């Protein structure tokens, strides 16, 4: 018998390489439609001969840059063409059966929103678009989304679906306000917030791993539970004792030198402590998840729990720990709404941010850096909504508020590139 034939047939890698794959054009078509609309509406829809002015630095900056004034039509057309070029890249990769990176849909989103901004700001004499302000508020609005998406990533990578991010954010916001007010120090709120989120996470973990309750159902129930409890205490304890719910402020801490960089300096390096914690959290979790022993084990548990069990990894213990940790991270993000924004606690004040965080996690393909990028995109959309309100655009702000949800549906449907959740997510591990 011929052994050479067998060797080639069983050679490593021949298993699925030889299976004919079908090219997927979904991402190309999905993004292509958006880019084409951008060109038609924002590009060609901008009247010729008018200009859009962007202010890039504020008067307090170390170095003041002049405002940039661009011909609106040319700029919007150029941005739309860049979007189309990105679509071309997606098509090129699809033709080679390759995936595109997480950066692409994010950059694509920014470019299209830039075209929108140019279009909206065209020919509004006396109104300029505050680019630095826009970016600062984009980052600011992204903070709870980043923490929420990190929480989701931590849980789902270990196989637990965390729909309770909303509840964890709200619990964190509540306890941060309560404890910080009682002590009279905003920073103490940052310690209290993760505890509240962690407890919600622990409840989710116990019901999911011990009683095998459907994780989505538990998550939704926990959201409602937290909403009910915090609203109750808000209208009883907090309204009877206003000193337990004061607006406390956390000062912005400008980092010397770095905060002096034009445009990005004040955006990135003149923020409060919670934002710096966020930078650290993204970097640390990114490295730990993909390059440490703990991360390898967590991902194994989320992909193939039985395989993890057979090499001596405690599956349910890992899941409980990760879910508590994730809850704590989301709880910390909840502090954004109260102590980190200088606000008192208010009923239902998270207003669905936890669900947008979940969307950022999916768009970011279950990785911390992706979550950061997606959250920034969504934060940008949110900031844009505010900015357009200021310059008096014709677009109803509700439509921009929908962007995160639309982007997520696109992402899940594979229209912005392939995304694959951890294989064992949502499935209880029973021996």
């Amino acid at each position, binding site marked *: *018998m011929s052994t050479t*034939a067998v060797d080639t*047939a069983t050679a*490593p890698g021949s298993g699925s390489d030889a299976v004919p794959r079908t090219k997927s054009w979904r991402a190309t078509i999905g993004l292509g439609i958006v880019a084409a609309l951008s060109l038609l509406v924002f590009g060609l829809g901008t009247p010729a001969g008018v200009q859009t002015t962007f202010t890039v630095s504020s008067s307090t900056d170390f170095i003041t840059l002049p405002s940039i004034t661009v011909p609106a039509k040319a700029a919007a057309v150029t941005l739309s063409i860049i979007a189309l070029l990105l679509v071309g890249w997606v098509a090129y990769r699809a033709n080679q059966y390759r995936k595109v990176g997480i950066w692409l849909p994010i950059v694509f989103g920014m470019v299209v929103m830039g075209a929108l901004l140019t279009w909206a700001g065209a020919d509004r004499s006396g109104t300029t678009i505050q680019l630095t302000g826009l970016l600062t508020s984009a980052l600011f609005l992204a903070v709870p989304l980043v923490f929420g998406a990190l929480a989701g990533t931590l849980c789902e990578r270990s196989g637990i679906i965390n729909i309770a991010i909303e509840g964890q954010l709200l619990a964190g916001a509540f306890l941060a306000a309560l404890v910080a007010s009682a002590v009279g120090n905003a920073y103490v709120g940052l310690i209290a917030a993760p505890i509240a989120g962690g407890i919600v996470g622990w409840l989710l973990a116990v019901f999911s791993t011990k009683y095998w309750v459907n994780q989505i159902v538990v998550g939704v129930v926990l959201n409602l539970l937290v909403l009910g409890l915090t609203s109750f205490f808000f209208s009883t304890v907090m309204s009877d004792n206003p000193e337990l719910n004061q607006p406390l402020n956390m000062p912005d801490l400008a980092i010397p030198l770095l905060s002096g960089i034009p445009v990005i300096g004040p955006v990135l390096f003149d923020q409060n402590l919670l934002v710096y914690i966020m930078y650290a959290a993204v970097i640390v979790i990114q490295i730990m998840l993909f390059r440490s022993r703990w991360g*390898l084990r967590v991902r194994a548990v989320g992909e193939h729990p039985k395989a993890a069990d057979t*090499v001596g990894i405690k599956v349910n213990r890992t899941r409980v720990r990760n879910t508590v940790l994730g809850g704590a991270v989301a709880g910390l993000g909840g502090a954004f709404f109260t102590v980190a924004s200088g606000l008192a606690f208010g009923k239902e004040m998270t207003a669905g941010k936890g669900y947008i965080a979940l969307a950022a996690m999916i768009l970011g393909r279950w990785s911390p850096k992706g979550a950061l990028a997606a959250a920034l995109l969504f934060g940008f959309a949110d900031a844009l909504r505010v900015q357009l309100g200021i310059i008096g655009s014709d677009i109803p702000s509700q439509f921009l508020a929908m962007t995160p949800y639309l982007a997520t549906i696109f992402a899940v449907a594979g229209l912005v590139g392939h995304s694959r959740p951890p294989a064992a997510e949502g499935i209880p591990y029973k021996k």
Partner: protein
Amino acid sequence: MRLELREITKRFGDFTANDAIDLVVEPGTVHALLGENGAGKSTLMNVLFGLYDADGGEILLDGERRVFTGPGDAMAAGIGMVHQHFMLVPVFTVAENVMLGHEQVRGPAKLLDLDAARAKVTEISDRFGFHVDPDALVEDLSVGAQQRVEIIKALSRDAKVLILDEPTAVLTPQETDELLEIVGQLRDSGTAVVLITHKLREVQAIADTITVIRRGTVVGTAEPTATQEELASMMVGRDVSMTVDKDPADPGEPMLEISNLTVIDPATQLTVLDSVSLEVRRGEILAVAGVQGNGQTELAEAILGLAEITSGDVSLDGEPLAGRSIRENLDAGIGFVPEDRTEDGVVAAFTIANNLILDLYDREPYSKRGAIDPSAVADHADEQVERFDVRTTSSQALTGSLSGGNQQKVVLARELARDLKLLIASQPTRGLDVGSIEFVHKRIIEERDKGVAVIIVSSELDEVYALADRIAVMYHGRIVDIVSPDTDRDTMGLMMAGAHGDQEEAA
């Protein structure tokens, strides 16, 4: 390392899976654990590997008593196990899979030392000639290569005792030969190998010692020189005939005609069936052979209408099946025995009687004026239970309480109750005891002799040879060739690995 099991007992509720089993495995030997499916072989090994807690007995390594509370303990003690269903994370690389659970770290941040893991994989791979790339993703590897990764995983933990649980179930005959060669090398390097199998040929080829297990107890040991008939009768507890009696086929007109059938999996976008053309005539059995996962399941499902056809035609008795509902296809005379009987074949929480009318519940006499007539259903069930020799206390017992063989008899009884033109049976005897296999095979041949066209999908070559009048070999969604059942095993093995047979077409 010398492994000794003394009086190991394991119960699941009332059922005793292992009853005081004694076993000694010497270093540098291959010890075959032979027994039918459900005899308790895997349970015993899972106890040894720390996955189950034993209800009694003790484990000794080199004469020293050991207690394993989990697989981690067993591995630390030098026991490695290659599971029947691979325990590999598909999206990890080979090196990541091998290091998982005993990762080396480096640097002040204690990050993973992937270089060390790569070096380990390469070293073991080179030592045994495995040709495994440490950076390949496991999901991209062939089944045979994945199994080698499992062996590397065990060896990288310095396993002195290696348990192989039904290692050849998913391999082509050539891959099986390669595996047996590897097992020989491991033995020569001093490893004690426990080979769990029900395949007699492998036992004879490689084993030094054979222990036969039946219904949870050791029924004896045998020499590798024992004949297949001797080993089989020890396994089953009575004389068995290793061949199926059947008359030569008398094929009539074509009943099922398939041309250029292509199916693309909507989830993965992979082409699972690639322009498959074949025909099956009245009164003949066409066996579809091939290693699991090469499109056989999809072929069976596409004919019935369970899988969506991307392009191509399927016609039964001259009438196209495309665009018809599964119900219409069943009514047109297709009988379907699904591959996974507990998932797709029966509703475990229903009684046997109700399972037997799953496809007839809305017809006379079982249903009258929109209501089910329990006595008609019960009468039908009693009759079928007797005709198909379903071993149960009552036809009103829950189907889930039956053994695999008896569940399969229920499925067959239901599917054969209609007048069939075509019977499709996927893995009809997987996991069944020898007695049930004989019964199922006899029934299938009876259907053929009644003039039904039969398609058998099986990954067991023995079964293919026993039943087939013609054999279609599938590889990567294509039909490699259609050959006659007197094709020898080596040629068949090559075709199952994708090489075209040299024989002229027997079709």
